């Protein structure tokens, strides 16, 4: 399984050197990657349908509990098939859709990366591994959504999507780490055995909240739904892929995967049912007012995701099988509708529902696909959508007696609105009279209209053989969500009962809504007046305030004056040291333990003090520099007195070089100006003197404290034994702490490169002028 994940990642990196190949007519060969992966996964359908599962494990960072654990069970298989199957359609489609685009190689690089990330996400059996792939999907989708990076809108939508899903990622990681610490393992299969341990822990509500936040941000649930309509700025193949089968379904997958671990309690049930319920109604209602085809699809997608969250929250056996079937139903018809929208956009150049009509005359196969997909989304009998909707109604009707009525009403209302949305996207553009401006339109490449037609027809085929799907695909999926073994029988015909009545009502009322509701710009304008109270608006205000605050904060703290930084750093250090010294109680100095003062020391300190006074008082830069270097040399001498020759040597050479550097720079500076006024001088002096006093106190306290010499003894004893060196300082540098030295020289190199490039760069720009 590892290779299925890696294959996409490797292909993606191979596109960097061999990307030009994609621009030739042989570019479609890349699409065989998802096809092959899809065929590989179909191999598992039969064994998994018989109740087995597959595990593969490779150690990676065992000390942190991160291992490359992969597991393929019913749930993973359904998603893997969707990702690779719809992925294959998208690859073929995008190759034609973006033909001749400048950055088509880049596009497929991102797409491969995204596909691997999604595959890794659904196959991971380790929470931390899952999180890594989770973040990878956020990042790669950022590039896909912002693919048209020359448009400001597109960049902004990509940023919004990344901020929302990235934010959810943080919460998710926190939830995972808490859960892993409580259960003592990061392996998801092992967590299933520790359900009671996790659910009875006092932190359980927090864990649930964090994981749920991760899922609802990713799956665009209210109030985080707004990134999804924004993400419609992406090229249509991306929207089709991200919003039918992959990206937004990742949150659903997460909830499904963790429902045996976190589910089955009131917190899980009520919060998810409420969030899902609000989302499905709110978004379905909004889809009525959109005039942009993709906008309609975006809101109906959010609504469908709401239904899934709602069903997983309900968590009963009926609800879970309904969710499993609906994931497949939705993926098939939504991908088809998105692809059809892409064709319409590609050929007519518009997605405006008020303009588009009569396209069946020029785009017949596309119209058939749209018609079938719309029927499936409406849940007309003999389509797969009919089975899905039946199961949803069955789940709500079998819910607890005190709530089932409300749940059923909510489900019916949502579905009525979704019927209308599906018809608007799949049928409306093809009905009526063809406007003259669209006369010249012709069918696009086969690789563009075959995928949606295929997906739409599959929706009908599955609808005719629900028993097959129930046994081999949806059944195993539901079993892995429920963590049990059941046999599900899906049937086309249940006889005349309440569910059939509800289905009929849904279709009839939905059709009426579709006929009576003509999308217009006026209605769209009306609904957008409510945007002032929408979560998106509120979040934007928050983001703007944070930006303002950070600008203010940066101006105060990071003003570009070295003296201001020094002052702040030293003041902060003083606060910390002062507080710690205060905690340590009064300072006792044992005068008798101090070593006697020698003549050399007194002389050196006198020179030092004299040099400091000179540095402060002088009005010439050169004198100041020389005086500072005298201070440095005096300190060198002190090092020598206290037998630290290595330190003294280094200090000496460094001081010499510093003076040279100063002289080089001074050459450029204007002659000395006394800019500081009296108040500044007094303030700086006070800060400096306090710092000196505090450090002296620290030094005195160190003398007073009982010291342990374990570490220095260890190095002293073992320097020769282990590292064959007699100079402990050097042995520390090159052997015991060699890693530190390595990083230090890397830092030094970066500093040198920085100076080099800064100065050279400035030179070049002045050349330009």
């Amino acid at each position, binding site marked *: 399984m590892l290779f299925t994940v890696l294959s996409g990642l490797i292909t993606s990196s191979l596109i960097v050197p061999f990307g030009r190949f994609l621009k030739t007519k042989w570019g479609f060969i890349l699409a065989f990657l998802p096809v092959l992966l899809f065929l590989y996964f179909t191999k598992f359908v039969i064994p998994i349908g018989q109740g087995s599962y597959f595990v593969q494990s490779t150690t990676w960072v065992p000390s942190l509990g991160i291992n490359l654990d992969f597991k393929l069970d019913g749930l993973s298989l359904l998603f893997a098939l969707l990702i690779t199957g719809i992925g294959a359609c998208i690859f073929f489609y995008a190759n034609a859709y973006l033909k001749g685009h400048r950055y088509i190689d880049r596009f497929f690089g991102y797409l491969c990366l995204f596909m691997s990330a999604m595959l890794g996400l659904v196959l991971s059996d380790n929470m931390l591994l899952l999180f890594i792939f989770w973040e990878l999907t956020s990042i790669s989708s950022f590039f896909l959504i912002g693919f048209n990076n020359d448009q400001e809108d597109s960049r902004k939508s990509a940023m919004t999507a990344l901020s929302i899903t990235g934010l959810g990622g943080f919460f998710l990681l926190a939830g995972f780490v808490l859960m892993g610490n409580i259960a003592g393992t990061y392996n998801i299969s092992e967590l299933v055995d520790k359900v009671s341990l996790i659910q009875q822990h006092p932190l359980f509500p927090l864990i649930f909240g964090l994981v749920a936040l991760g899922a609802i941000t990713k799956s665009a649930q209210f109030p985080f739904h707004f990134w999804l309509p924004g993400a419609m700025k992406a090229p249509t193949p991306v929207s089709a892929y991200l919003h039918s089968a992959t990206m937004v379904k990742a949150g659903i997958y997460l909830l499904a995967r963790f429902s045996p671990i976190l589910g089955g309690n009131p917190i899980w049930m009520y919060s998810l049912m409420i969030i899902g319920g609000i989302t499905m109604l709110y978004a379905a209602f909004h889809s009525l007012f959109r005039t942009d085809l993709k906008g309609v699809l975006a809101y109906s997608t959010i609504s469908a995701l709401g239904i899934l969250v709602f069903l997983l929250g309900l968590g009963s056996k009926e609800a879970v099988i309904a969710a499993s079937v609906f994931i497949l139903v939705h993926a098939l018809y939504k991908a088809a509708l998105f692809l059809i929208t892409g064709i319409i956009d590609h050929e007519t150049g518009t997605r405006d529902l008020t303009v588009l009509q009569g396209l069946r005359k020029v785009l017949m196969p596309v119209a058939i696909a749209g018609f079938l997909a719309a029927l499936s989304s409406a849940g007309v009998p003999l389509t797969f959508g009919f089975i899905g909707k039946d199961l949803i109604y069955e789940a709500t009707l079998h819910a607890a007696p005190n709530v089932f009525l409300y749940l059923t009403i909510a489900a019916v209302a949502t579905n009525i609105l979704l019927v209308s949305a599906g018809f608007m996207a799949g049928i409306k553009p093809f009905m009526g009279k063809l406007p003259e401006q669209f006369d010249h339109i012709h069918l696009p490449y086969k690789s563009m209209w075959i995928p949606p037609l295929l997906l739409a027809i599959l929706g009908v085929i599955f609808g005719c053989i629900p028993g097959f799907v129930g046994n081999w695909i949806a059944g195993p999926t539901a079993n892995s969500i429920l963590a049990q073994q059941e046999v599900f029988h899906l049937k086309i015909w249940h006889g005349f009962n309440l569910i059939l009545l509800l289905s009929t009502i849904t279709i009839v009322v939905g059709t009426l809504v579709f006929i009576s509701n003509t999308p217009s710009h006026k209605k769209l304008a009306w609904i957008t007046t409510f945007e002032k109270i929408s979560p998106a608006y509120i979040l934007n205000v928050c983001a703007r305030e944070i930006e303002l605050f950070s600008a203010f904060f940066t101006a105060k703290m990071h003003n570009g004056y070295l003296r201001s930084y020094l002052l702040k750093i030293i003041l902060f250090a003083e606060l910390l040291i002062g507080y710690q010294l205060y905690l340590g109680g009064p300072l006792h100095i044992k005068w008798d333990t101090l070593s006697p003062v020698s003549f050399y020391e007194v002389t050196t300190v006198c020179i030092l003090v004299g040099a400091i006074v000179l540095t402060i008082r002088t009005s010439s830069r050169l004198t100041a520099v020389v005086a500072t270097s005298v201070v440095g040399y005096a300190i060198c001498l002190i090092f020598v007195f206290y037998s630290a020759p290595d330190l003294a040597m280094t200090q000496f*050479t460094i001081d010499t070089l510093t003076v040279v*550097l100063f002289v080089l*720079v001074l050459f450029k500076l204007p002659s000395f100006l006394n800019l500081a006024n009296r108040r500044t001088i007094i303030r700086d002096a006070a800060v400096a003197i306090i710092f000196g006093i505090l450090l002296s106190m620290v030094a005195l306290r160190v003398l007073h404290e009982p010291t342990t010499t374990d570490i220095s003894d260890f190095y002293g004893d073992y320097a020769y034994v282990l590292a*064959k060196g007699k*100079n402990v*300082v050097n042995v520390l540098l090159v*052997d015991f702490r060699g890693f530190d*030295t390595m990083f230090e*020289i*890397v830092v030094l190199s970066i500093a040198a490169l920085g100076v080099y490039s800064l100065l050279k760069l400035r030179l070049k720009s002045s050349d330009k002028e």
Partner: protein
Amino acid sequence: MNSTILQTATRYLLPILLLFSVFLLLRGHYYPGGGFVGGLVASIAFVLHSFAFGPQNTMKLIQYKPLSLIPIGLGIAAVSMFLPTFFGYPVMTGLWLEEKIPVIGMIGTALFFDLGVYFVVIGVVLTILFTIALNTEEE
């Protein structure tokens, strides 16, 4: 600066200082010294030369850009860091030759690591100083 005394003195001092820096580098494992100080002393030697003859002449003397010393040094340090892994030891294990070599003494990975530090230090110091010196002169 055009001082004959300084120029003549530098002609003799440069090789002596460079020798001294190598001496510091080699003795580092047993006595005060090491790659860092050695590198600083070597850079001071070149800085002295540039004071006496001007940075352009020093650059001519070195022939190569001091910037190129940085990757060389980092490379040597990194190789000596990862060399033990080829013999099945963890990264940064000290490996030593059995026999002493005359003049140099014991040879081991630590010495090469120090050599890497030595080159990086020279490269960094000279890059920074010469970049500043040459740019200020041109303007």
